[in-house]
């Protein structure tokens, strides 16, 4: 019953509709049940549970060409307050994990997975999971503290833009609901890891709308996703790999239509004692009809982020993002905030135990060549 609430609090008339679907009391009850129930489930010699709480606060200021903001981006005042609750438990071969996000822009069950572990390395999951497209989306999830930067690269933005992403909305599926087989096999000091998923993907309404768990009225269609990676040393985060996702996306907004999105990509990460360099490259093809017009459009996008730990508590970082697309692409025309160029500079200060203060500046150029700059300050933490 409780999982039929999928809610995005949006502006205007959507608020009323969203509130009808969602009760914050039920949501709080669910969170309490999960927090109290997981330890009880894990009272076993070979089991374990984890409860993590990731709060963050962002204040920001923009200058330049300021377009109307979406509900999920930083508002005109420039504030975002959010907390992500993560609960996991395992007993023998059975596993469970969930991640619930509460913010001043949205309340959502971001991940909700039941798993069966064939062995210590391989697990079959059923539920709502993050699309393993690349490295960013499955390393950080909605835990802002875990990512060095405040913002996510635009190409891996969440569908609704929330969770530490102050700009725009995602153009590729980041949340899927269905089956996910994931695992690894060790080779000497290294390992090959894989993920294969078959799931319901998003529909295209005002934005991409992920298929909500146990709410079958949303017309998500089949999505296939896979990722194959290699780590030369399992104790290091250095890795490289390939990934692909194919989604059939129905259009539910007045434009109408139905199209297939094919995505192929590469990712890599090089980690040193005080440095980290990582990036992802995406080749995306949208094929089908949008607004009664059959066409195929291509989007290429990549980002590269470098991090350098100046001293133990201070880390400087920079990120470059670029994308190229057809100027007349009707799909991308729905995402006015999606940039063709972004340069990010930031400084993170880790203090006390598991707290971080980050200052970030970015210069952005949209696809129509309009520009804006953004300055963000974030406090993020993890309580465990």
């Amino acid at each position, binding site marked *: 019953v409780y999982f039929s609430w999928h809610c995005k609090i949006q502006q205007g008339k959507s608020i009323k509709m969203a509130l009808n679907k969602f009760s914050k009391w039920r949501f709080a009850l669910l969170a309490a049940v999960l927090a109290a129930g997981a330890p009880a489930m*894990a009272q076993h010699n*070979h089991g374990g549970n*984890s409860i993590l709480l990731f709060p963050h606060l962002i204040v920001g200021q923009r200058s330049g060409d300021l377009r109307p903001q979406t509900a999920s981006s930083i508002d005109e005042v420039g504030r975002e307050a959010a907390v992500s609750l993560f609960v996991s438990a395992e007993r023998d071969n059975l596993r469970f994990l969930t991640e619930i996000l509460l913010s001043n822009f949205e309340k959502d069950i971001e991940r909700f997975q039941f798993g069966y572990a064939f062995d210590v390395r391989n697990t079959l999951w059923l539920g709502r999971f993050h699309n393993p497209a690349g490295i960013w989306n*499955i*390393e*950080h999830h909605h835990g802002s503290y875990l990512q060095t930067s405040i913002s996510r690269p635009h190409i891996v933005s969440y569908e609704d833009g929330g969770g530490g992403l102050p700009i725009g909305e995602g153009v590729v599926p980041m949340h899927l609901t269905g089956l996910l087989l994931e695992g690894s096999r*060790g080779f000497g000091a290294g390992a090959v890891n894989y993920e294969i998923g078959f799931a319901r993907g998003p529909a295209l309404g005002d934005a991409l709308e992920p298929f909500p768990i146990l709410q079958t009225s949303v017309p998500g269609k089949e999505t296939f996703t896979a990722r194959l990676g290699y780590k030369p040393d*399992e104790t290091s985060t250095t890795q490289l790999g390939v990934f692909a996702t194919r989604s059939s996306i129905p259009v539910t907004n007045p434009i109408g239509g139905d199209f297939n999105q094919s995505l192929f990509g590469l990712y890599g990460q090089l980690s040193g*004692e005080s440095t980290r360099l990582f990036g992802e490259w995406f080749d995306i093809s949208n094929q089908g009809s949008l607004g009664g017009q059959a066409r195929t459009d291509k989007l290429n996008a990549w980002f590269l982020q470098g991090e350098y730990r100046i001293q133990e508590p201070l880390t400087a970082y920079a990120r470059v993002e670029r994308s190229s697309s057809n100027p007349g692409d009707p799909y991308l025309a729905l995402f006015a905030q999606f940039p063709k160029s972004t340069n990010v500079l930031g400084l993170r200060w880790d203090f006390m135990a*598991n707290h971080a203060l980050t200052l970030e500046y970015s210069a952005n150029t949209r696809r129509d060549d309009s520009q804006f700059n953004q300055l963000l300050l974030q406090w993020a933490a993890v309580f465990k």
Partner: protein
Amino acid sequence: MILTASSALRWLQHSVLALLAGFVLCGNVLAQSDALRLVLVASTSSPVENMSALEVRRLYLGVPVTVAGQNIEALRYTEHQAQEVFLQKVLFMSLNAYERQIVTHTFRTGRPKPEELGHVAGVTEALLGNPQAVSYLPEEEVRKARGLKIVGKLWNVAP
């Protein structure tokens, strides 16, 4: 001028004394650190007989480690000095970097983090209750405990 010079002299004397006291205290702490012999321990009923530093590193960073077909679990002894030596000399990481890496691992996979225990008695009890668990402890503490065996030497510098 005389008063000022006298005050300055007293200030200098106090500063020198404070510095000397600081050196003595620091030297004492460093000597304690050098004297610490850190070992990997398990219950005497554990299948683990010997574990290399590389395997310990893999285990504490969330990589599955099996011995005799059993998955080995890691326990963290969070007493300040022992933990610092373990992180710096065995995992080659700061506490912040380690915490971030294991939280990322848990957040991604749902697998539990190593259990944290602040007292030797708690570590001993947990090891005796779970033969698949290992932990690091100062060697002198292991000698006092019953039912534990040393399965690896992690840091061993004579004073």
